[in-house]
């Protein structure tokens, strides 16, 4: 807000011959925005109105949620949530479909992995957590297949590059599983079977 006092201040500092005069003006106008806090009136400075509005706000939440909790107990209004929290292990928070979650290897119709062991994902992986052992595929139309596909989730950074780079749509990160916890580093290492079926 441009008050006469501030205008005078501006004119005092503003030099039309200065190369960066306009920058100085812009800077001062920005600072006005920050200073645009008005003084508290006497009544406000006693904090009594804020105190009451604060207690009003929290107790309004209290009685709304308490009422809803009681209604939920008797089976009413189940569609209105009384709390914003999720009871995590039992009730999982819905994830976005595009969320990058634990990997899986997609399968062909006969159940074999779609992967052709082209090593693209292993090459692109910034964490170097993928290790593929290639072998020759019996079908002459398919060149190779992964004899073993090791993915170390302890190293994975969930960047999703492996999914983007895959030419065969053989690896996806759509299992919607994020709660991966194990007792040892070894069990964080997923092999082909776990990635295809788990």
């Amino acid at each position, binding site marked *: 807000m441009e008050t006469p006092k501030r205008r005078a201040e501006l004119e005092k500092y503003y030099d039309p011959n200065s190369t960066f005069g306009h920058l100085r003006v812009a800077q001062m106008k920005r600072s006005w925005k920050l200073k645009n806090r008005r003084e508290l009136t006497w009544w406000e400075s006693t904090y009594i109105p804020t*105190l009451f509005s*604060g*207690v009003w*706000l*929290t*107790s309004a*939440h*209290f009685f709304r*949620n*308490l009422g809803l*909790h009681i209604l939920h107990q008797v089976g009413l209004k189940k569609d209105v949530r*009384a*709390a*914003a*929290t999720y*009871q995590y292990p039992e009730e999982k928070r819905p994830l976005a479909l595009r969320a990058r979650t634990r990997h899986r290897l997609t399968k062909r119709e006969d159940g074999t992995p779609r992967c052709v062991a082209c090593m693209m994902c292993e090459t692109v992986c910034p964490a170097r957590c993928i290790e593929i052992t290639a072998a020759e595929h019996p079908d002459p139309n398919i060149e190779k297949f992964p004899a073993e596909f090791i993915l170390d989730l302890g190293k994975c950074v969930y960047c999703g590059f492996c999914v983007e780079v895959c030419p065969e749509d053989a690896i996806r990160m759509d299992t919607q599983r994020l709660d991966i916890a194990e007792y040892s580093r070894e069990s964080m290492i997923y092999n082909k079977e776990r990635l295809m079926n788990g």
Partner: protein
Amino acid sequence: MDIVAVIIKVILAALTIGVAFGIAGLLTWVERKQSAVMQDRIGANRAKIFGFKALGLFHAIADVLKMLSKEEFIPAGANKFLFNLAPYLSVIFALVGFAAIPFGNQLILGDRVIELQLANINVGLLFIFAMMSMGVYGVVLAGFSSNNNYSFLGGMRGSAQMIAYEVTMGAAIMGIIMVYNTLDLQALVRAQGEYMFGGWLPKWGIFVQPFAFLLFLTAATAETKRTPFDLPEGESEIIGYFVEYSGMKFGMFFMADLIETVLVSALMATLFLGGWQVAYLSPDGFHFPWGTFVAVPHIWVAILGMIAFFLKLSFFIWLLMTVRWTLPRFRYDQLMRLGWQILLPASLVNIAVTAIVITLLR
């Protein structure tokens, strides 16, 4: 004094202390649940016995078990005697105050008159204030004996704060004492059974002395050492008089706070909301101001009175809890300025105005 009267007193004492302690124990659960519901959360609900969760009530038991089974650590340089004494002082002085709180009118069983008040002291109000002031010894000793500078700072803060707000508290109830002309809490509650404005409005403290009520509420919140006045404890920083305490001794300080909350709520209910008085209820029944009369048997009058007292008590506990979970804490200089420069002069003005009004009305 006959033996039956002694037995009745002992039972009453056990009941009073038991109920006070029970409510304070329940408050650990109330505090968790109420703060959760206020903040759109659910709150502690995992502890269960045989699959029953009981709305998380077992968490109070789990807490006690945890406290009891923890190591009781005493710092090397601490004064062991005072270190062990401090939590007991805190709890005992908080509990003793309940002796003078009247929680009901007389109960007449046969030819025996039972006063529903533990100790009918004619300076009950002074007694409670003395006990609440003694509670500061627990704080000071805990801070002093821990051999820890942070504890010491917390203890100093605690004593300074309690002295500052004790003065305001005492000054705030001066108005009440002038209006009702008594220090006896039972007589004070009986005096609140009268009516103003042609019998419509009960002559409760909050209607006679609304300003004193606000002052007392603020000072009482400070007295319980809970947010927004929790500087002696400082849960969010390391300065607190009980930083060196662990196990059940810490639990006792924690309980002392909650017992004080109950005590202060009971005191506010007694002084400002008419204690066990039910509006329009006389010893023989309801006398409504529009002339209707509903007779109530004596036993029900006593029970209604006790229910009314506990409802008023619960209301004030709810209010203190809501304030505790709504307001951020004060800075220390703000706390002292509020106590000495705003609340104390305001309470003195309240005394002066009350005195002038009483003299003019006489």
